[in-house]
């Protein structure tokens, strides 16, 4: 009896191992209205981290869910929780026709994709060194959006010190930061100010407590507008902003709703929309983008600044918003070149 009980307990423990990385195979749950066509392409969304960041990964899920709702694909999702990227990619490719890999970490797509010639891969947020025939890379001009965020930060800073809290010291995160710095410098040049830009890295995307500490450390050094670029760890930046009374800028999704008084705007990266558009093109039979890198830009509307839903509190004066609009056009037309750390 005891042995049986111990065995049962062990089995329960083992089962929970799989909870974190569960696959939600939504095919089985297709509603009776039959909104999902049985012949629809199978789309597998593989994210490097986990959902619930109210930002990057959640945005990708929204785009994929929209495709499913319109009956264009049957969706399944896999969360890697920061490990086994290649194995999860293969798991997805074994079953799906289209695999969307969300996260700069999926470098192995370059070697795995050729093993599945009939599967179309989309790699979000990074690009293979050389083109692969069945891989579409989608990168985002986060540097351009961050340029605008940097301009706003410098304009809103009373101390002329602004901060950024990055998830880690990597090319993609630093792409935000170079744009942010350049935007702040542009404000200085135009208004004769001297703004210092300070950066801290959390080295974690999960831990809001460390995100909060990073923001407080920057605030101690005088930063009164802080841009968070750290997924769920960035939630702590908003906490710190509310507590210490400084402004925060959200990232990837329009995050103003989380704390409308502390978050003045967000640098949006429309990951979901880009996935939606790319997959829709595939489904309609146009695969001309495969084997290329689609560099989505500010001009196309895939990055930009969000000020929250209509009617939410606005801290940014209209003249600053207007200037931002003008800079957005200048970047779109190529008049202003924003530095980048992307390859």
């Amino acid at each position, binding site marked *: 009896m005891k042995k049986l009980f111990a065995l049962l307990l062990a089995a329960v423990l083992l089962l*929970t191992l799989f909870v974190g990385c569960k696959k939600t195979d939504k095919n089985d749950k297709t509603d009776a209205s039959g909104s999902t066509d049985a012949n629809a392409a199978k789309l597998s969304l593989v994210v490097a981290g986990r959902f619930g960041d*109210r930002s990057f990964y959640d945005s990708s899920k929204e785009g994929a869910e929209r495709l499913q709702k319109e009956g264009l694909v049957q969706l399944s999702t896999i969360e890697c929780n920061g490990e086994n990227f290649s194995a999860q990619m293969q798991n997805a490719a074994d079953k799906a026709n289209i695999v969307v890999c969300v996260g700069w970490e999926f470098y192995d797509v370059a070697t795995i994709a050729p093993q599945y010639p009939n599967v179309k891969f989309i790699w979000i947020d990074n690009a293979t060194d050389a083109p692969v025939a069945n891989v579409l890379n989608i990168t985002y001009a986060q540097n351009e959006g961050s340029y605008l965020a940097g301009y706003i930060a410098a304009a809103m800073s009373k101390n002329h010190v602004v901060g950024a809290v990055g998830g880690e010291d990597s090319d993609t995160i630093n792409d935000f930061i170079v744009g942010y710095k350049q935007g702040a410098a542009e404000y200085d040049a135009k208004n004769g100010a001297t703004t210092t830009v300070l950066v801290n890295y959390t080295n974690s995307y999960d831990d809001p407590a460390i995100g909060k500490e990073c923001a407080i450390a920057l605030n101690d050094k005088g930063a009164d507008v802080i841009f968070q670029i750290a997924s769920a760890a960035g939630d702590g930046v908003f906490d710190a902003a509310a507590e210490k009374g400084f402004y925060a800028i959200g990232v990837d999704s329009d995050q103003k709703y989380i704390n409308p008084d502390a978050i003045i705007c967000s640098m949006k990266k429309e990951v979901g929309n880009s996935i939606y558009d790319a997959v829709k093109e595939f489904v309609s039979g146009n695969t001309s983008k495969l084997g290329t890198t689609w560099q989505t830009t500010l001009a196309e509307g895939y990055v930009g600044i969000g000020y929250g839903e209509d009617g939410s509190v606005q801290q940014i004066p209209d003249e600053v918003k207007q200037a931002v609009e003008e800079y957005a056009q200048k970047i779109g037309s190529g008049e202003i070149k924003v530095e980048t750390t992307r390859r």
Partner: protein
Amino acid sequence: MSEFEKALSTVFSVGTLQQMLRSATPVALAAIGGSMTEHAGIMNIGMDGMILMGAFFAVLGSFLAQSAFAGVALTLGVGLLVGLFFGLLVVRYRSDEFIIGCAINTFAVGLTSYLSRSFFGTAGAKGNPALPVLHLAFLNKIPILGPMLNDQSLFVYLTWLIVAVAWVFVYKTPYGFWLRASGEKPDTLRTAGISPTKMKWIASVLCGLLCALAGAHLSLGHLKGTFAENMSNSRGYIAFACVIFAAANPAKAYLAALMFGFFEAIGLRLQGYISSDLTQIVPYVITIVMMVYVVVRKQRQRKRTAKLEGPASA
């Protein structure tokens, strides 16, 4: 002020000391819990999972009852259950404590993620009622120490009390004596008519409760009612290092946790002067230094006992 002096003054500021206390508190609470199991002869590496569960159930209680103290009550209840569960497997069924600890850690990630999504959706929990911050006006009159100690979350102060109580419990009460004996000389304890198993059970439950408090501080004290999946971020392992370093003395474990908090704070403030990749390794370097100290200490003890017992008595 030269550039260097400026850097020094930002790195060693009141903010650094404040963060030291904030960051040390969850680690310290878990380490005190870990000291209990360590004394009882149980190697408990499941503290990280226990903290994570503590953080989640505190937020859940706070969300359901709209009161932070209800959150603490719920998380203590769950902490008790987790402690009993740990005791059941490790004490009653004598399973390998290392494996059970690992299992609790993975179990906690899965369970809290699953429940968090069931209750709050993928967006996670945020902005639930949090524990109060204590403002003691008289403290601000004291330079440095005043602002450092003031305006901290309730649990920062509560931890001092817990450290004192735990120290008295372990070293000054018969229960503490039995607890230590249950780990060091269980047979002797049994001869004295006291069940070492019972002491091990008590240690497991105390550890469960204290780790639950550590989690509650993280989500309701340090953060304002926020739960993010996997947010314990290895604090349980740091706590374990503190336990070993302190030889399971609760007061020393608290000091070790303060040291970790201090170096974390220094690390964050050094960023901008040196690369974040380097500052990130600081806690791990400290761990290694601490473990070297532990080895040296052990060897010294061994030499001393060898001297006492005379040559070649073994």
